């Protein structure tokens, strides 16, 4: 492991050639004159491109044994770390990534961290991360990973085994958040900040919901009481569905990883959701909503309940609804207990990182109880450290911290599998079919189970 790393070779190489390239580009017309030269250049480019394909190693070759052979991160290495690290992830909307990198650089003194935005959306960030990992790129030392990517990345052998690091930091991490980093009995990332669904409700119109049944009943009472959630055909629908399924005691995969979604609970929840759309508890427009349209619809004042993430709190306070809405943890299923689904982002170390010690130091810093308070205070994200939720300064910024903590602690990860994207598609497509009325509950459940089983059999 080389501890002193030359500052990002990619960047340095590019600097001079970039200017040159722009010059060439600008004089594009002139290139036409030197035909012979261009022909030579064309041949050269062709050769380089062919070589590039071979080198990028997409064509197969010797298989690495994925997760089993992965190297492990040494928790003690962080203390001696030097050099620089590059943290890569999606769009830094709240500023938390750049902010953490800056604070770490200042505090550490020996290691400098910078943040690179590699995708504008979650989907793009994943694509860009995958492209770099497949190409064995050393550009990024740490990837900020969505909780649902962990098993996929780990099984491919792209990540450093963080088991020892997570064990060492265990006391300061909320157990449910640690679960999202587990695959094959090892931990592959450290939780950075978490997320859990909350219910926003209009105190003047409806009661704080204790159970889903009560929420739906109350929502159906008057036209202005309706419930809005994320019902578009996408990942968010999987989350909304699983939140109810988990609280009803259902599951997608059991502890052994067998498909157990074909259950009475799944049918009950699906019927409940589609009845809700029929009797007016939920507006049919939810079939087109993801997070933002759901929030905007609720902000119009025409609804009583909204399921959304914690970020909505601040936005709602900037509207006329400020003061009239309450925040509650997700309700329980009647006769069951409250549960939910964890969102949030983890920090994974790339197997191709050239400064693993620096990455360990960064993760150590990001998960300290002290910095976790800033996660809440400065960036309005949900900390992964329990103590942060009762900190006075945090409570001032996030008065609903207690409800949020309850939601986070009661929540479970989404199904853990390297083929999670396919599993989620099987869920949201079939749930959507039931909600929009194009499939019966029975058919949808059967199909869901079949498709998940098929997905799990992927090569």
């Amino acid at each position, binding site marked *: 492991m080389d501890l002193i790393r030359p500052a990002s070779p990619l960047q340095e190489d590019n600097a001079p050639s970039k200017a040159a390239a722009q010059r060439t580009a600008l004089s594009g017309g002139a290139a*036409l004159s030197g035909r012979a030269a261009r022909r030579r250049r064309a041949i050269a480019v062709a050769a380089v491109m062919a070589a590039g394909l071979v080198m990028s190693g997409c064509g197969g070759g010797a298989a690495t044994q994925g997760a089993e052979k992965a190297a492990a991160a040494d928790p003690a290495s962080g203390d001696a770390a030097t050099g620089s690290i590059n943290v890569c992830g999606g*769009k830094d909307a709240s500023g938390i990534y750049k902010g953490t990198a800056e604070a770490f650089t200042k505090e550490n003194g020996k290691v400098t961290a910078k943040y690179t*935005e590699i995708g504008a959306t979650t989907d793009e960030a994943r694509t860009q991360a995958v492209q770099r990992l497949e190409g064995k790129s050393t550009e990024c030392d740490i990837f900020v990973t969505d909780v649902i990517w962990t098993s996929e990345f780990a099984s491919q052998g792209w990540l450093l085994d963080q088991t020892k690091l997570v064990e060492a930091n265990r006391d300061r991490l909320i157990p449910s958040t640690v679960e999202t980093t587990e695959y094959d009995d090892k931990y592959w990332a450290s939780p950075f900040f978490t997320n859990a669904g909350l219910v926003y409700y209009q105190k003047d119109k409806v009661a704080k919901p204790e159970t889903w049944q009560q929420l739906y009943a109350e929502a159906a009472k008057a036209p202005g009481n309706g419930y809005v959630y994320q019902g578009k055909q996408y990942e968010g629908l999987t989350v909304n569905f699983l939140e109810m399924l988990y609280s009803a005691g259902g599951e997608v995969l059991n502890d052994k990883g067998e498909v157990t979604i074909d259950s009475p609970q799944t049918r009950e929840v699906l019927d409940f959701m589609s009845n809700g759309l029929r009797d007016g508890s939920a507006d049919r427009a939810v079939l087109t909503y993801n997070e933002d349209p759901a929030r905007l619809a609720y902000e119009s004042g025409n609804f009583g309940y909204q399921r959304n993430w914690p970020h909505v709190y601040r936005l709602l306070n900037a509207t006329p609804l400020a003061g009239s809405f309450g925040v509650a943890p997700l309700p329980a299923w009647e006769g069951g207990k409250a549960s939910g689904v964890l969102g949030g982002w983890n920090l994974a170390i790339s197997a191709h990182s050239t400064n693993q010690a620096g990455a360990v130091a960064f993760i150590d810093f990001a998960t300290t109880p002290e910095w976790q308070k800033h996660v809440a205070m400065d960036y309005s994200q949900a900390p992964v450290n329990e103590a942060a939720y009762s900190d006075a300064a945090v409570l001032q910024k996030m008065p609903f911290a207690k409800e949020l903590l309850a939601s986070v602690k009661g929540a479970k990860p989404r199904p853990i599998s390297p083929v999670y994207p396919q599993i989620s598609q099987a869920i949201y497509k079939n749930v959507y079919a039931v909600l929009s009325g194009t499939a019966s509950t029975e058919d949808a459940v059967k199909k869901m189970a079949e498709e998940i089983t098929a997905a799990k059999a992927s090569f």
Partner: protein
Amino acid sequence: MSTLTAERTTAAPADRPRAPKRRLRGEAKLHPLVWVFVLAVMGFSLIPFYWLVNTSLKKGASLSQGELFPSQPTFENYLVVFQNAEFLLALRNSVIIAVVTTTVALVFASFAAYALARLKMRRKAMILTLILSVTTFPAIAIAAPLFSIWREIGLYDMLLGLIIPKLTFALPLAIYTLTSFFKEIPRELEESAYMDGATPFTTFRKVILPLAVPGLATTAILVFISVWNEFLLAVTLTTSPEARPVPVAIAFFSGTSEFDQPLGTISAASVIITVPLVILVLVCQKRIVSGMTAGAVKG
């Protein structure tokens, strides 16, 4: 065969002095129904655009009100966009990329189109099919391999790295459009040039190109806009604000969390970036009208 009649009829004006009547056609009397249609077309084009402008003038809670006229219009979104250094950088990048790509595409394509439309050449059908096949491949399947190759040869995250593929995928449209236009140009004009002893290349430069100005202007607009709006390659092949073009920069606009979409700012930015295109259209549109007739006189 209809095109053959076209050639003959269009050939006619070259032999005669141009009739000054041309301008009068249509201007004489616009039927009221035509005006209705003009208004309908404008409405169809403008209403969604109006909605975009409307959204760009709203912020906060009023975004969810669906008002047809913003009750408290604000230019704050525009300010935010203009104060965003990365957006201005992106604007610069987009202008460079679009101008360079369009210019080079026109040069390359007019060469190729002339050869295809006028010169003796083997396997034209095959060449045309190959050219077309370049644009019929789903872009997603091209982006990933290009990403790997570009990283290996150092073109990743650079303007040139965007110009090259965008040029490639703009060429088929340009070549097809120009071939079609060159084909329309009456042969008689060239033949008189040959009589004077001009080489095919000189004829191309001195006779064909001036005559094809409306085609060139149309092609320029089409290529420019398609390059300007292209998103997938742009997002796959760049990572830093120094290389990001406008559509990608807009996608990077953010609210306060990963979930909220800053509708107001996105709309304001989209309105702003139509300005360069409006200018382009205003500049080019005169050429579209005047080019052919002016050229015919010269010939």
